């Protein structure tokens, strides 16, 4: 492996940890990280809106907030793509099954969860817009 590739892979691994933490709230398993590196490096980063992931990681910015603010502006952005890849990879793994699939009927919890997440999205959207204004994270 050339030094350049190793460097790129190392950064993609750092990116995977950041995105996984933002979505699931805990550290990414090693296997998910390596799958993420493999998946992203196989696809060209040709999104209409490029995002400076190094800056987001260096400044420990809220990637989830930036993503929703960006997505509502342009869905074709690299941050949404990367979150999407992470979700796909995790959804195929049994340890994430209950995060994606409702196994037991929970009407009240379902409604409360949706209500909570709607308000949380509004907060994240405002925060994301602020972060986009304050920090230059678009490539």
């Amino acid at each position, binding site marked *: 492996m050339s030094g350049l590739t190793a460097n790129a892979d190392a950064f993609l691994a750092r990116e995977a940890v950041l995105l996984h933490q933002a979505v699931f709230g805990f550290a990414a398993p090693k296997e998910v990280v390596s799958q993420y590196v493999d998946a992203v490096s196989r696809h060209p980063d040709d999104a209409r809106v490029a995002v400076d992931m190094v800056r987001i990681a260096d400044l420990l910015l809220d990637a989830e907030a930036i993503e929703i603010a960006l997505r509502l502006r342009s869905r074709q952005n690299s941050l949404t793509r990367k979150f999407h890849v992470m979700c796909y990879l995790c959804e195929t793994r049994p340890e994430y099954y209950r995060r994606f699939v409702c196994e037991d009927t929970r*009407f009240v919890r379902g409604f409360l969860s949706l209500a909570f997440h709607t308000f949380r999205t509004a907060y994240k959207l405002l925060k994301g817009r602020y972060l986009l204004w304050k920090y230059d994270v678009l490539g």
Partner: protein
Amino acid sequence: MSSAEIIIVGSGAAGVAAAYQLRDRDVLVLDVGFRPEPDSLSGNLYDLRKTRRDLLADLLGSDFEGLHNVFNAYLSPKLKNPHMRFVTRDWQTLSPIVAENFDAVMSFAMGGLANAWGAGVYRYNDDDLRGFPIKAHDLDPYFDALTKKVGVSGRADALEPFFGSSQGLLPPLQLDRMGRAILGRYEKKTRELANRGLFIGRPRVAVLSQDHDGRSGYGYEALEFFKPHVPAIYTPAFTLTEMVCKREVRYAPGHLVTGFQETPSGVTAFATQLSTGNKVVFSCRKLILAAGALNSAKIVLGSEHDFERTLPLLDNAVSYIPLVDPSKIGASQESRFFSGVSLNAVYSGPLHQEPVQMSIYGMSGTLRSDFLFDFPLSVRANIAAAKFLTPAMVIVQLFYPDDPRPGNCMQLLPSGALKLKYEPRACVRIERHLVRAFRLLGLLGSHRLCRYLAPGNSFHYAGALPMRENPEGQYETDRYGRLNEKQHVYIADAASFPRLPSKNYTFAMMANAMRIADRVRGSLA
């Protein structure tokens, strides 16, 4: 030079139906014929997802093919999944297309695009055949024969006036929870909804609800988005394999047919042998083109070396309406269900000049990630929404009819590529009305959330070589599919459909191919 009495080009729904009808003759099917790779998927989708740690390759692919829609233009979830990629394998290389406003997809697989179809089978009636030089009674005997051969599940209900005879149907498939709820409510409000032009019923699907003709009934394992050739779900590849095993027809995969020439005694077909790149020649008395509407047209234009002429292009416009049943939010995920069409609906009222057919699907047959970012929420919220809303959601898929228009056409370029041009028409949309009508069934939605797919995404291409009572020029066919100004060349696929009704065309195309095959048989005598 190899020869046969009849050569059929293509092994999709039309080609195999024609071959089946001619199986007592000397028939050779020429085809590229990609087949699926073996897979390790068996059991129930949700049981597998809960327990198996090595599903990545089966669900996303070892080359991450399942991530196609993250990085590329939209492809239907079924076609993008790794074990289904054989259906569209190499089509851009084998038959390049230059398209304006048209997302074309072709198949060079054994069985064609019907390897990944929704299996909806609908009889064209006289209303559907408006503009055709044939009537429903011309197709009815073939519909009956196909119903018996293929095995069609369904029943007589509110949709029978649109779908035609229910004779010979197998019992309908079991409904999932949402399907039961919608149908139950519909039966209490039938009249009110009829006043709004909305009719709902069980689908007619080529999926076996019980064992039939040597194939097992459907096991409700919900794997059909990921696993090809589930025995209960019909694909023409089954019939072709059966006929080849019985030595009723000969099958020559690995051949890309590029053109033909009529001779005094029949036809010479030219092909490229894909394994060697060599040009090979076949001779026959009759040639039946059933390579798909785009490819058949390309072969005809290529045979005439015609790079000037434009031919008509038809495609059903498609839209999706997402609807939620609030009473099912937070319901547990069913694991045993059919992930294809759950119910059908038809709008027949004053807002649209002819009936518009709809398919109603649940959302649980694919990965949640396939539609995760369609929710307008943050990533974590999208996952929660997918978890709690999916069992409460349905998608209503609408197909609009299409008629030939001057701007919508195809042309063969000197490079060998097919140029497609399609201008979406400003047609009357009925989604807003339907959203209000479905509200009576407890399903909530908004026309603002409707998704209108780019032209080409119905995969229902047609119209290039239309059949006419009195065909004119070299690019129309007579009512029996015979290419005008040719004596021995027939078009058996939807290239010969002069217009597209809303109804899914596959079953009508198969019946028509059998009708044309009978004519070919008669002409040999």
